[in-house]
């Protein structure tokens, strides 16, 4: 699962874990505790994240201060909504392990499974 774009996920993780705004230098210092990484790499990544709409920024003196545009929870909710709408929406092709069911369908499935497992137990 590792691959291109992984650093973006690491930086966003950093940004969501801290409370307020952060400069590239601050993020770099945090990241350097666990990995060997160059200033320019972090700067480029944060610039990309800004361009993609993940981070907002504001110039303070020479340096930019960055912050996440939405919380992790907001993004999660958005993705989950898209996934749950998947079977209705022809554009989002996701294969869910189990399509969302209505209460009635779900209870039918449960009674079927009960019946099958009791039959198995009896034989």
């Amino acid at each position, binding site marked *: 699962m590792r691959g291109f774009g992984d650093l973006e996920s690491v930086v966003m993780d950093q940004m969501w874990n801290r409370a307020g705004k952060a400069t590239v230098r601050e993020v770099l210092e945090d990241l350097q505790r666990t990995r060997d990484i160059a200033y320019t790499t972090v700067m480029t990544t944060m610039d990309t994240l800004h361009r993609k709409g993940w981070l907002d920024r504001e110039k303070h003196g020479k340096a930019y201060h960055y912050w996440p545009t939405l919380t992790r929870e907001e993004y999660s909710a958005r993705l989950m909504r898209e996934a749950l709408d998947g079977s209705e929406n022809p554009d989002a092709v996701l294969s869910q392990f189990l399509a*969302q069911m209505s209460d009635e369908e779900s209870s039918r499935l449960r009674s079927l499974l009960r019946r099958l497992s009791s039959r198995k137990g009896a034989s």
Partner: protein
Amino acid sequence: MTVAICLLLYSLVVAVFAPRLLARLTRAGVAPRLGIAAWLMAAGSVLASWSVAVVALLVELLRNWTQPGEILAACVTTLQGVAAGEAGVLVQSGLVALTAIAIAAMTVLVWRWGRSLLRARTRTHRHASMARVVGRRMAGLDAVVLDAPERVAYCVAGRPHTIVVSSAALAALDDDHLAAVLTHERAHLTGRHHLLLAATRGLATNLSRIELFTTAASEVATLLEICADDAAVRRHDPRTVLGALLTLSGGASIPAGALGATGVGVLARAERLAEPPPPAQRARMRLLLSAITLLVTTGPAFTGLLAARGVASCLPGFA
């Protein structure tokens, strides 16, 4: 002209009878791969016979064109002919109009279908890359975890492909169940099931009035789930996969407006996992589905040939 008419009749027969017949045969999920093949070939043969019909019309038109080199002049002559009330020219211009409409309709269909495939690709790739940034990584887990109260697991095609498990699903599933779910999702990705889904759904949305295409889309989706279940069963116990299905079906109720409609498919999957179809039934179904697939695959060519050779005499006016 005869060829085109016969092919259209053929596609009508397939479009009317195939959905009911195939749905009855494939619903239980015996021989899922052949089931998918039969649905795809049935839909494909209708599309193929339409394309060949358009080409046949065009060929007919060009062959009967009195002055092939001077289309403009011919047009003028045609108009003059119509004005003079010549019946032969009337037929000719009708043929021109028909061919033009048929070509336009096919072009629009291909264009829209292509566009919906591209849109699906963009959406899913974006979803995958977003999920990889938002989702949490867990050591040893070949998936990203999204915080959500619903028990959900799914896969998205992208660069790279991504499997998403919700935090609620992760908490509810034990290790064996989770492994079975992941094997199921990986089977979707390695089997490139998203391409088949996108293709059939794209046809269903653009030709939503034709039952063959809408039924094909939903049945193929269910059969792909069954194929992925089979892959999971090969690695894990059928009861483990069944248990995972049961676990994910519980939990937080689903937000209103997000109800999928494939309860029948889920019931078929559960029944099949609990009691795999006996070998004799499987063999019979394989034979039947292979025969149907062969029939619809060769159908357009056969009909076309028949029309060009034999039946031509039935409609002497057009031949």
